[in-house]
């Protein structure tokens, strides 16, 4: 088959003509990313070596911001609180999400869609709303949770969930469970529905009980989703900010004795309330490194990246 010697010319012309078009369509994204992501990132890298009062006054302090941070007991507390929250997310929230997903996946009830909506719906409201709502539920003496726990176990009527340093983190975790369990359940449910039923049936025929089928067939089949949910949950946990802020408004989200202070809450306090953008940038970069290392370790350990 021969090609007309004249035919490539108009196509080349069109291609030349269209050559710049994709870049124009990409331009808004590229400009926004450069202005609002890349430039601030680079600028924050520089800023981390300065002590500032907003953007106007700055003094070069070298590594002093990082040195201060590593020695600051308040930052240690924020990091500890955030890590506890992240661990609760992984070891409490995700198993609950998976359990609910298994329950919803097991039956053929017409109510499945209804329960899916009910469990997911807390995620439709903002965290500020959730914070305000649970602030009322945790009210000593009159709050629903206090009254419920008093009726159930004879404890808690006058407990200050949001005023007692020992109870603040449990209160945040309980609130977060209500919000996020349903959200992660949707991921697990989608993964469960894509598991090959033939494999599960084959395992059952071979004599595997329900637990063995789940452990040796179902769970490995949804490994990618599990790793994704764990990684995003940990990243989300280390970025926790609005929920404690709304739950503990009297203390700007830090709670009594900083018991509800998170790393981002600490960043907000030093950078925006305190005006030291340099120290804030150092906190941001430190957090970025922590999240990167944890995520990298997870992906390495689970071997997902190699597949």
């Amino acid at each position: 088959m021969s090609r007309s010697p004249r035919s490539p010319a108009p196509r080349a012309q069109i291609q030349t003509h269209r050559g710049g078009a994709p870049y124009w369509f990409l331009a808004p994204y590229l400009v926004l990313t450069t202005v609002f992501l890349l430039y601030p990132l680079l600028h924050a890298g520089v800023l981390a070596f300065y002590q500032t009062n907003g953007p106007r006054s700055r003094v070069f302090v070298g590594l002093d911001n990082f040195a201060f941070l590593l020695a600051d007991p308040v930052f240690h507390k924020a990091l500890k609180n955030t890590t506890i929250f992240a661990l609760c997310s992984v070891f409490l929230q995700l198993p609950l999400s998976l359990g609910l997903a298994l329950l919803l996946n097991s039956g053929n009830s017409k109510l499945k869609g209804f329960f899916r909506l009910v469990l997911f719906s807390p995620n439709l409201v903002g965290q500020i709303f959730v914070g305000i709502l649970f602030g009322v539920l945790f009210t000593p003496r009159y709050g629903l949770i206090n009254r419920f726990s008093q009726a159930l176990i004879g404890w808690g009527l006058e407990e200050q969930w949001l005023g007692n340093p020992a109870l603040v983190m449990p209160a945040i975790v309980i609130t977060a469970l209500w919000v996020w369990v349903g959200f992660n359940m949707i991921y697990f449910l989608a993964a469960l529905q894509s598991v090959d039923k033939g494999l599960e049936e084959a395992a059952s025929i071979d004599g595997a009980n329900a637990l063995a089928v789940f452990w040796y067939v179902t769970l490995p089949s949804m490994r990618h989703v599990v790793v994704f949910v764990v990684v995003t949950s940990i990243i989300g946990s280390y970025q926790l900010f609005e929920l404690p802020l709304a739950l503990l408004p009297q203390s700007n989200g830090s709670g009594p004795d900083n018991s509800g202070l998170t790393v981002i809450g600490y960043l907000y306090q030093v950078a925006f309330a305190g005006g030291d953008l340099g120290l804030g940038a150092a906190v941001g970069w430190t957090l970025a490194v922590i999240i990167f290392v944890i995520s990298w370790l997870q992906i390495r350990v689970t071997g997902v990246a190699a597949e």
Partner: protein
Amino acid sequence: MIEKFPYGKAPFWLLMVSVLSTALLIATRRPASAKPDIVFTTFTPLHAEAYRRLAPEFERAHGVHVSVQLVHQQGLTSRLQNALLAGTAVPDMVELLAGTMGYFISGPLRDVGFTDLTEHVAQEGLREKLVESRFSLWSSRGHVFALPHDVHPVALMYRADLVEALGIDVSKLETWQDFVTMGQRVTRDLDGDGVIDRYAIDLPLGGSDGLLLLLEQRGVGLFDAEGRITFDDPRTVATIIWYLHQTRGAHRIATDCGWGQPLMKAMTDGLALFYVAPDWRTYTTQTDLPHLAGKMKVMPLPAWEAGGRRTSVWGGTGLVITKASQHQELDWEFAKFLYLNKPALGQRFAATNIIPPFKDAWNLPEFRQPNAYFSGQALGSIYASLAPSTPSVYSTAFYQLATDKLNEAFLRGAEYFEKNGDAGLEQVVRRELAEAENYVRRVSERRALVMRDE
């Protein structure tokens, strides 16, 4: 037409959406209203209403247009702080909440975005005309940056019907020791279910404002007049231990009624008999709990020692003029018009129960008016009599940090007290306060680098 578009269907529709949305924006654009000469922003609906009523008189007198804006307090503070630091548009005049001043003075004086009012205050003799102690809250490094709106003296508000039924004579509660003796008598589990149903007083379990105002009543706050932190004071240790005894343990007399609806319910139920009440709180109480009309009264705070100070201070609002404003003198005239306008201050008190710092205004009839809600007491006279002895509160860039650290020390003391009781408590509180003080000092020394005016 779509097929002829050289870049395909998707780009065609993207282009159409952009053209249509731009056309819609242009078509629905409203003509811009004339820019006001003064943009005044406050965070209190009551203030906004009062100023909107007053503004036309000022506008007529000066031939200008004033716009009074209402913005939520937290949003106002953070947006104003960021706008000032970034050099973007800000209102000409702003009312700030006490305690937020530190956010604006955390750099060198040249970075403070507010006009220095020190000379204006001196020229008008305002230190003599207003309650002098209120200027400290709005000053930094010897410069006054705001005009105080109020005094906010603190008294005790109580359920007179219940207190009188219990045979308590409040005139005999002269000291906190008298109060505690009475409190231990009335704090009771009334139905025998193991839960206390009646407490003497509402105090925040976490310390915070309740503890701070008691420290200030005792003459010791967070900072002294030179901006030095003052945690290392035997009165601070003694007050913390006293507070712990009243809020925890077998002999406690206080409960934490919280805020908002839980507080309203507690007051209605008579869960606590007495409530710490700055002037502003009397107004919110009479508005939110109309069914307690005629059942409430106020009394001065008990003193720490016989003959001592019978009040403290809680909260406050100050008016700043931003440096960015193009007509500073006009702004100052408007500030005086709002804050030193004697007849208007009488009306303002009648509408809010808030005592202005302008002492001349206290003689107005509105201040002597009996208040039916508070069993016919003349709230204006009671609070005005307390106003001159309100303690000074010194503002620094580290005010919030110091408040947080004081609370940390208090809560660690509380944790120790709940586990071990009084044995060794004083040493623990002293040690925690020393650590808190060191932390604030370390941060302030570090920040000194960037706060220097060169």
